[in-house]
């Protein structure tokens, strides 16, 4: 055995040296040629280099932040000022004011135990209104949960929003979702879904469906936060949007916090925007406290997405001025001074108001009247909503399946018999009846 093995090793060595000789004479000219040529691997077309170097976030300049308005409300570059007519500008501002009043009162109503949950939108009003105004009402919106301004701008009324939060029988969602999980099919607003990030691949899928329609002139916009961008679904969605060529605007609201987790702990590198070019997606970063910058970015993104059937990634930088939700007290993890700085110096409302004033279309009187009007509207609607009956108990069994299966029919019938037998044991007067 030993001898045999030894002999074969010898043979192998002999073979190998022949092979090396052959190889070296054969390959030398090719190496010469490659010096000036790009590599053509299926996975990368790139130049060869002879210096080994790691790349990281400092290898590139940070992605700049596009803005139109200065903090004093003046337009920095005149050519960047969008042409939005006076009435729409005023409508945009009034809607922003309405968001703040809705937030203020509904937040308090949760604190008083009238509704189970609420999330405020402070600091991000410019993102909602700037983006909503740049879209077509037929564009499909997938929101995360902190985009109530988009709903208002689309024409969803304060009454409809509050009916949803109170889950009364006029809630188009039949009281089935927790507060603020709005949805409106007619206005192309997809019902909000709680698990973070799931809406992003869904938005891409919906964009794929739109693209298949002949002469498509609609796009999808999908909002998500800096925290949701860490979900695997976000990466999957970006990659699918790029590879399937979908007309979708991937809109990241980077407000600095995911509940208590600051972006410094959420990711390393240059934010969410940096992920766009790496996946072949047209990307822009904007000042989310600047309503006009958001407007311009979304307007152009929309045109590009529809004309080319391609996704666009927008990262709008802002600051979540309010707590994450009613389950959170953010002063436990950030200073009041920090919050105040953003609430006062970088307020999207203030900047936009100063802009309107500089154009001479807004006044202190108009401000006061709008504030009162939007506040009164919320208070009045809330009082009405509380008095409205709750949905019929039968609604509990509807819509599990398109056609109600016999097993559910039977349960509904049993419940009916039970309620008939013990009507005094249940607050049936609070519910709608047949």
């Amino acid at each position, binding site marked *: 055995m030993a001898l045999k093995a030894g002999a074969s090793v010898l043979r192998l060595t002999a073979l190998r040296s022949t092979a090396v000789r052959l190889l070296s004479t054969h390959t030398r000219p090719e190496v010469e040629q490659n010096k000036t040529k790009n590599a053509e691997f299926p996975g990368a077309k790139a130049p060869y280099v002879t210096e080994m170097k790691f790349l990281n976030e400092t290898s590139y300049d940070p992605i700049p932040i596009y803005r139109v308005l200065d903090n004093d409300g003046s337009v920095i570059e005149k050519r960047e000022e969008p042409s939005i007519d006076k009435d729409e500008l005023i409508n945009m501002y009034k809607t922003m004011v309405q968001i703040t009043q809705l937030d203020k009162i509904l937040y308090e109503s949760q604190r008083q135990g009238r509704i189970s949950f609420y999330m405020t939108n402070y600091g991000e009003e410019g993102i909602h209104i700037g983006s909503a105004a740049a879209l077509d009402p037929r564009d499909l919106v997938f929101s995360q949960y902190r985009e109530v301004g988009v709903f208002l701008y689309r024409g969803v009324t304060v009454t409809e929003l509050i009916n949803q939060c109170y889950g009364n029988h006029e809630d188009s969602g039949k009281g089935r979702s927790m507060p603020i999980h709005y949805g409106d099919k007619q206005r192309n607003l997809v019902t909000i879904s709680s698990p973070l990030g799931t809406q992003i*691949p869904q938005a891409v899928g919906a964009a794929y469906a739109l693209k298949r329609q002949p002469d498509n002139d609609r796009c999808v916009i999908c909002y998500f936060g800096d925290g949701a961008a860490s979900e*695997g679904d976000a990466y999957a969605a970006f990659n699918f949007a790029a590879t399937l060529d979908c007309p979708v605007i991937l809109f990241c609201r980077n407000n600095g916090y995911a509940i208590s987790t600051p972006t410094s702990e959420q990711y390393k590198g240059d934010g969410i925007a940096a992920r766009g070019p790496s996946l072949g997606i047209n990307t822009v970063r904007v000042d989310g406290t600047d309503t006009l910058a958001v407007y311009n970015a979304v307007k152009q993104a929309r045109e590009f997405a529809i004309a080319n059937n391609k996704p666009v990634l927008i990262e709008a930088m802002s600051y979540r001025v309010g707590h994450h939700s009613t389950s959170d007290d953010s002063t436990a993890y950030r200073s009041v001074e920090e919050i105040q700085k953003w609430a006062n110096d970088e307020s999207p409302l203030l900047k936009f108001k100063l802009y309107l004033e500089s154009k001479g279309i807004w006044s202190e009187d108009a401000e006061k009247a709008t504030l009162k009007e939007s506040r009164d509207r919320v208070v009045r609607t809330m009082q009405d909503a509380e008095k409205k009956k709750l949905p019929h108990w039968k609604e509990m069994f509807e819509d599990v399946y398109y056609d109600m299966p016999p097993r559910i029919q039977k349960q509904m019938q049993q419940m009916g018999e039970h309620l008939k037998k013990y009507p005094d044991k249940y607050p049936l007067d609070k519910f709608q009846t047949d």
Partner: protein
Amino acid sequence: MKMALKSSPVVFGWLSRLPRSFSTSSALAAKPMTVRDAINSAIDEEMERDEKVFILGEEVAQYDGAYKVTRGLLKKYGDKRVIDTPITESGFTGIAVGAAFAGLRPICEFMTFNFSMQAIDQIINSAAKTFYMSAGQVPCPIVFRGPNGAAAGVAAQHSQCFGAWYSHCPGLKVVMPFSSEDAKGLMKSAIRSQDPVVVLEDEILYGAQFPMSDEALSKDFLLPIGKAKVERAGQHVTLVCAGRATDTALQAANDLAGKGIECEVINLRSIRPLDFPAIAQSVAKTHHLVTVEQGWPQSGIGAEICARIMESPSFFELDAPAWRVTGADVPMPYARSLEALAIPAKQDVVAAVTAVLGNKISAASSQ
């Protein structure tokens, strides 16, 4: 409840069983067709019928599907309707959900259902619940399909049944075809359903041939979701099964018939909605019940059937306690000999029927 480990030590190697044709109830003047071709023709016919139907998944287009179920579809319908996706289950499942929201009817293929775990949030939290949570405004008509259950020699992460998992969730329909007729009729109904449907196919069955009646070959052949099929009539004991377990039950019924025991074999076809009336009717006749499934025993399909018997007048029809034959309560072993023992085999069912009819449950269920 590990019937498999207590039964006689005869080992039926999977591979030795494969070339045999599977048992069927009727074969009158019918053409044979593989389950694979039956699924393929169902998808093909429905794609032809409705422009909104499309299929997406890993390797479904250029490669004709990892198990060749989508063979020829790319050529016929093009890459807008037969879509190869990057390898992200949560991603393409989410794409399917979004496309369904926007009016299309996606067929979402999982290379195997084992990988659907990466996307289960999209299936449970979005697909199954959105119709309800949108108050009936947004239906989500999707077919989630792919091979489920034990394959052969691919160990724990590739061999498991998700019938119990998906049938747990309201809003989903779950079907588990056995024969080629089942596969075609259920797939076509699934594609036309307004609800999301999970179609649990079986890798081992893909290549099995079954007779197809003229009716089943027609483009209008639909099987109702939620209706079971009596594969074999009998008066002594009811065997309830689905998918490949139906083959095990039919083999056992054949053997038992030689001993004068006539089994009524009920192929559930649908796990949710479950055709409990069919089971109750049979139990009223046989007064004995054995369930056969490949999945694990705890909270399984057999457990659900037994619970419904307990909660219904059918309980009083039983002359002996019901009995479950299930997969062994362990992750699937890789070794072929152990794998064969971990899945219900004919002799396990024969042993269960013998115990139930002899009213010797307590002796047999020492574990």
